[in-house]
């Protein structure tokens, strides 16, 4: 264990408290600490609410603030939050224009947000956008959809910017869903995750192995293979992403190179450089690129590449001002 997080059950609350204390100009705890919210709400704006298990920080709480989320609900490590948290967030941040829930496509997240939405149907107008950007989606027999991974932050940023401009609930939902075919991510793990409660590794990689197509819960990926050089790793990530993106005329490509928690900036920028080189070979020049640690899987070593083919309008939403603990521009 290379870990401070001994007892996960209390550590998540402690970590959230540390987060709120570090950013008290922007965020505050909601009622009973059930969620984290913007310090100041904008009346009449659709409330943008997201959430998921802990262990993915800075997602989602790090994206609360002007131009992005209004509230985020954090569950236990890798465990979706419970409906009471989501209900409380809706009650506290809906200023009349309704709530848009941004949910990563995991059965647990989908079901908990859905139960909350059902329970609050009499007192809030609610729409849900499910994020499914993972390109690690082989010839599987899974009955419904891809995972939501690092692309989630793109959805949250675009919807947040649109909500700030006064876009209504139905239009926001349409915007979020319209994006789904043009947003893909693919991840590689070079070292697995040790779960804090049990000190058990979810999957153990040998020093000469890597796992391609991993998600963000330490779950095994699409396939395991021998450790390749960085150029080859980048190719293995980019090819499925490109193959699955719906083409778009006049697209503004947005590139995100995201670290999983245990990979330092020097390596992320190396991967970014190699990714640009690979994309250049495919005739793609990113209109913007974001490199950093945004959507983690505890301390997993590895990274993901996200590509979004944005329309000019969507790209303007990406570039619109944002003031959150994690993104400021």
């Amino acid at each position, binding site marked *: 264990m290379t870990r401070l997080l001994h007892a*996960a*059950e209390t550590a998540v609350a402690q970590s959230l408290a540390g987060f709120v204390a570090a950013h008290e100009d922007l965020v505050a705890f909601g009622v009973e600490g059930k969620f984290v919210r913007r310090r100041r709400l904008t009346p009449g704006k659709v409330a943008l609410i997201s959430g998921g*298990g802990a262990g993915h920080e800075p997602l989602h709480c790090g994206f609360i603030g002007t131009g992005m989320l209004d509230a985020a609900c954090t*569950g*236990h*490590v*890798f*465990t*979706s*939050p*419970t*409906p*009471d948290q989501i209900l409380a967030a809706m009650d506290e941040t809906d200023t009349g224009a309704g709530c848009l829930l941004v949910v990563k496509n*995991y*059965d*647990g997240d989908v*079901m*908990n947000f*859905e*139960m909350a939405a059902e329970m609050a149907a009499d007192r809030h107008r609610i729409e849900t956008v499910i994020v499914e950007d*993972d390109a*690690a*989606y*082989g*010839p*599987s*027999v*899974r*009955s*419904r959809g891809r*995972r939501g991974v690092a692309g989630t932050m793109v959805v949250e940023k675009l919807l947040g910017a649109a909500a700030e401009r006064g876009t209504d609930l139905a239009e926001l939902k349409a915007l979020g869903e319209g994006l789904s075919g043009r947003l893909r991510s693919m991840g590689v793990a070079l070292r697995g995750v040790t*779960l804090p*409660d*049990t000190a*058990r*590794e*979810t*999957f153990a990689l040998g020093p000469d192995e890597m796992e391609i197509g991993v*998600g963000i*819960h*330490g*779950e*095994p990926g*699409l396939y395991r293979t021998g450790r390749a050089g960085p150029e080859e790793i980048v190719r293995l990530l980019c090819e499925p992403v490109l193959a699955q993106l719906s083409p778009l005329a006049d697209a503004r490509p947005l590139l995100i190179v995201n670290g999983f928690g245990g990979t330092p900036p020097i390596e992320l920028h190396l991967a970014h450089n190699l990714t640009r080189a690979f994309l250049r070979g495919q005739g793609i020049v990113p209109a913007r690129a974001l490199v950093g640690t945004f959507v983690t899987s505890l301390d997993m070593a590895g990274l993901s590449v996200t590509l979004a083919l944005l329309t000019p309008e969507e790209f303007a939403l990406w570039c619109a001002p944002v003031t959150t603990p994690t993104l400021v521009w």
Partner: protein
Amino acid sequence: MTLDAADLTALIGLCREQIEQHCERLGRLDSAIGDGDHGANMRRGLEAVYRERDAISALPLPVALERIGLVLVMSIGGAAGPLYGTLLMELGRGLATGEEEADFAAILAQAVAAVARRGRSGPGDKTLLDVLYPVQAEIAGHAAPLRIAECARNAAQATEMMLARRGRASYLGERSIGHEDPGASSCALLATTICQYFQEHAPS
């Protein structure tokens, strides 16, 4: 089959104890094809119910079951929370609306169907439903408690060779084969615990 407050208190205690004992094993099963938290999740849920056991047991059975479901939903999180919660809440609601002599098996069938709707899943998807369906069938067939327990354990084991189509394991494709589903395993464990209690305290 009737349950008084003492039975319910005892059952809550037994279920909590069994989950505690198998917490590590359930986590290990979930690590193999999921994210490793199923044991911790179930323990958190049963602890929450256990803390409220006296208030719950004092309620009429249908209300008590619905309450247990709600406590599970609000404490477990993850996939298991809404699924076990829906099962118990629907069971409670079914018993409440049914006539005095309503068929328990029919009510259970409706609750299992609600779980399937909640999970957008069905038989053979390698989930706890693969235990719930056969258990419901045995109950409908008036099988003895120990027979039902055996069936539940076999059903859980049978998920080992299934290819997961729902839950986190479904992202693994072929690699999900060869591991017992953690949700099926916890479901069989709870079913067995309840059946054994009924066996030992033969219905009056």
